[in-house]
């Protein structure tokens, strides 16, 4: 991040390397087209300038074949570029199974980060090198956008939703983090630093932050505090779906459709329980909209996720 003249950004994630190849491909293609168009224009302008003696001969050749020819050629070339980019984009949207999930809350004008083991930071993000990291992000107010050019990733962070994005940092160092979606007065200062550390250093850093309670543990406490356990807990008196083994599985809904229980579904079930009702249960859950802040929501979601992970074998959900 030193001063001076830069031509290319740093390349610090697995994805960044692949993106640079795509960039090279795009550059070469467009350089060729540019050379062709500019070259022809220049040659024609010089050769056929008004008072040149160039041979003009038969001026009106057939245009049919030429038109079809270059239309098809352009089309094929463009399709190639499309598939290359689409393929890489798909990869960017398919995180591996073993990601470390870190929560990010954006608000005017700061980034709040929570690690799974409970550490929090503001406008900074510490991550271990060579590990797939998945960010689960939401906003407390307007749309923001989490962008790390050295990783070649960015994604809008919307209020009222979870957006996620993953990367695998490959180079130890510090990289800039920007907010890329205009979000008000201090938009340009809604920036931060991503620090990529060796595994050992990362562990030491985590420990030095003080052994906080994990998000799951905090979530468990909230689960009781907000009264969720009254219905969903083992001693529940009301007919509510059990949450064990829920995360990541398809859930049949009352309207006959299916959803996969991801973070977004859990979030919606807490805030907008009437919007997607699980099949076989009365729609009696109250909405917690406006009562639970984004950070507590994360903790609750983490807790529900952990219930899923805790009993991976608990295949079928008990019949209602």
């Amino acid at each position, binding site marked *: 991040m030193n*001063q001076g*003249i*830069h*031509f*290319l950004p740093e390349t610090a994630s697995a994805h960044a390397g692949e*993106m640079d190849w*795509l*960039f090279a491909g*795009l550059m070469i293609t*467009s350089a060729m*087209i540019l050379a062709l*168009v*500019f070259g*022809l*224009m220049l040659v*024609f302008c010089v050769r*056929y300038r*008004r008072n040149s003696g*160039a041979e*003009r001969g038969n*001026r009106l050749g057939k*245009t049919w074949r*030429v*038109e079809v020819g*270059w*239309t098809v050629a*352009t089309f094929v070339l*463009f399709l190639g*570029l*499309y598939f290359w*980019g689409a393929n*890489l*984009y*798909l990869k*960017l*949207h398919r995180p591996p199974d073993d990601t470390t999930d870190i929560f990010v809350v954006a608000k005017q004008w700061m980034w709040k980060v929570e690690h799974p083991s409970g550490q929090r930071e503001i406008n900074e993000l510490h991550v271990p090198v060579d590990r797939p990291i998945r960010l689960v992000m939401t906003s407390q*107010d*307007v*749309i923001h*956008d989490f*962008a790390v*050019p050295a990783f070649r*990733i*960015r994604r*809008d962070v*919307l*209020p*009222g*939703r979870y*957006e996620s994005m993953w990367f695998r940092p490959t180079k130890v160092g510090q990289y800039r983090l*920007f*907010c*890329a*979606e*205009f979000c*008000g*007065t201090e*938009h*340009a*200062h809604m920036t931060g630093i991503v620090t990529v550390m060796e595994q050992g250093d990362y562990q030491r850093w985590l420990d030095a932050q003080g052994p906080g309670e994990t998000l799951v543990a905090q979530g468990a406490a909230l689960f009781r505090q907000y009264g969720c356990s009254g219905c969903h807990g083992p001693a529940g008196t009301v007919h509510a779906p059990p949450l064990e083994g829920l995360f990541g599985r398809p859930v049949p809904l009352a309207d006959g459709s299916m959803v996969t229980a991801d973070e977004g579904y859990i979030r919606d079930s807490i805030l907008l329980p009437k919007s997607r009702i699980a099949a076989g249960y009365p729609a009696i859950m109250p909405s917690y909209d406006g009562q639970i802040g984004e950070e507590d929501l994360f903790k609750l979601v983490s807790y529900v996720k952990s219930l899923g992970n805790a009993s991976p074998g608990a295949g079928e959900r008990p019949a209602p």
Partner: protein
Amino acid sequence: MTATSPDRAVTARPAAQPPNYLTEGGSTLRSWLLTHDHKRIAILYALTITVFFFFGGAAAAMIRLNLVTPPGIFAADTYNRLFSIHGIVMVWFFLIPSIPNTLGNFLLPMMIGAKDLAFPRINLLSWYLFVVAGVVALVAVIAGGVDTGWTFYTPFSTMYSNSYVILAISAVFISGFSSILTGLNFIVTVHRLRAPGMTWYRLPIFVWSNYSTAIILVLATPVLAITLALLAVERLLQVGIFDPALGGDPLLFQHLFWFYSHPAVYIMILPGFGVISEVVPCFSRKPIFGYKFVAWASVSFTAVSFLVWAHHMFVAGMSVYAALVFSLLSYIIAVPSAIKVFNWTATLHKGWISFDAPMLYALGFIGLFTTGGLSGLFTANLAFDVHVTDTYFVVAHFHYIMVGGMVSAYFAGLHFWWPKITGRIYHEWWARIAALLIFVGFNLTFFPQFILGYLGMERRYHSYPPEFQFWNILSSAGASILALGYVMPLFYLTWSLYRGQRAGANPWAATGLEWTTPSPPPKHNFDKTPTVTRPPYQYRPEPEPQDAQGHA
């Protein structure tokens, strides 16, 4: 100095001008403000948008000044208001009306052999709406400005911005009605008022492209109006439409907005294609290469321009599948643009090319539009766009298309038809210098922004990390050259009004119907409705030897 050379049809200054649209009907302010003549209305538009162009340009100058140093010189809020008003004014008060409402208004009826547009009064009404919209926009600025950017993204614009959002969107809303009326007028005119013999395949490409533009104006603008109305409802009445805190959908606005604004990009560029398709054949003395392909490419833009809006939203939280489809469609729509460029280039082949000012602007257009278009291959590419969207790469991309492209085309057209509109010839040498300065200044200003964007400089930043400074300084330096280039025509064109040589009916020896009537044209364009017997662009090779003199 071709235009003043003896072989061109430059008449000696006659004692008195024949009656024309400038003199007939009086020259009082009242006669202008109540005119129904499409040519006078075109002039009214030209004056208005010139004011807006320099107003938006002044904001651009301050933006670039601020970005010379990383911390900037303006307060964050001031800067945010500057780039917002720059964008709003340039898009709605310059780019969208520029060619259709000035050159289109002036030329469309003449090119098809008509006396006027189909609805002359509505034409005047649409100018008044435009002026009212402009005044409202200026009031918004004077009241304290707006800080949402020209895109008005929600929920920032509805719930969080404490600037004059309602005034600003009212301005845009009103200008939308002006657009719709102009569009309707053009469509009906082209359908109903063509002279005998003026079949569809005898229409100049300029008419085809303004016709296509008009269709987009009529179909897309209502969506914008509805979107802005919804925005106002949420902001004023706190009804949850876009803000999730009220139960709304934050992405809905973007879908609606781009459903208008992507086609709007074609509103901004299609008329430019039309101008270039007139200028290049004229100065190459050749019919346009592949006339029917070019004509139908214009029309096909209208259809496909509605299918790619979501390529502005690849990182906005759309589904992956939607992104895959929109990227594919964007690549498909790039093909007709490529056809146009190839056809203009091929038109030069075996021509008798001369480099008068309109042609220089047109060649500049082809170069800048091609570069901008190719950078579109980058931004339409899913994986690549993830890295550059919302950065200066995108700022560079759209300036290459809209400023390098559209503004160059507007200048090409203005210089080409200036003798027709005013009856005078400007100083060719100065015009060529300006064209050159604009080309050089433009590239110096905006090429560094591609690099900045790839490095990761985000747009709408009033201050930035120091490692981006070098390219920002270069860009600002280029902007001062560009500004000079844009100011020059103001002087030599004004000068030509008073001291310029009189132009004959057809100083460029061009073939369109508009050149068959005197310059400036009489009030009703033609003494007698012309009958068309030939396709357009019947350029003949220059009569060789005697012409060679005077073209050093």
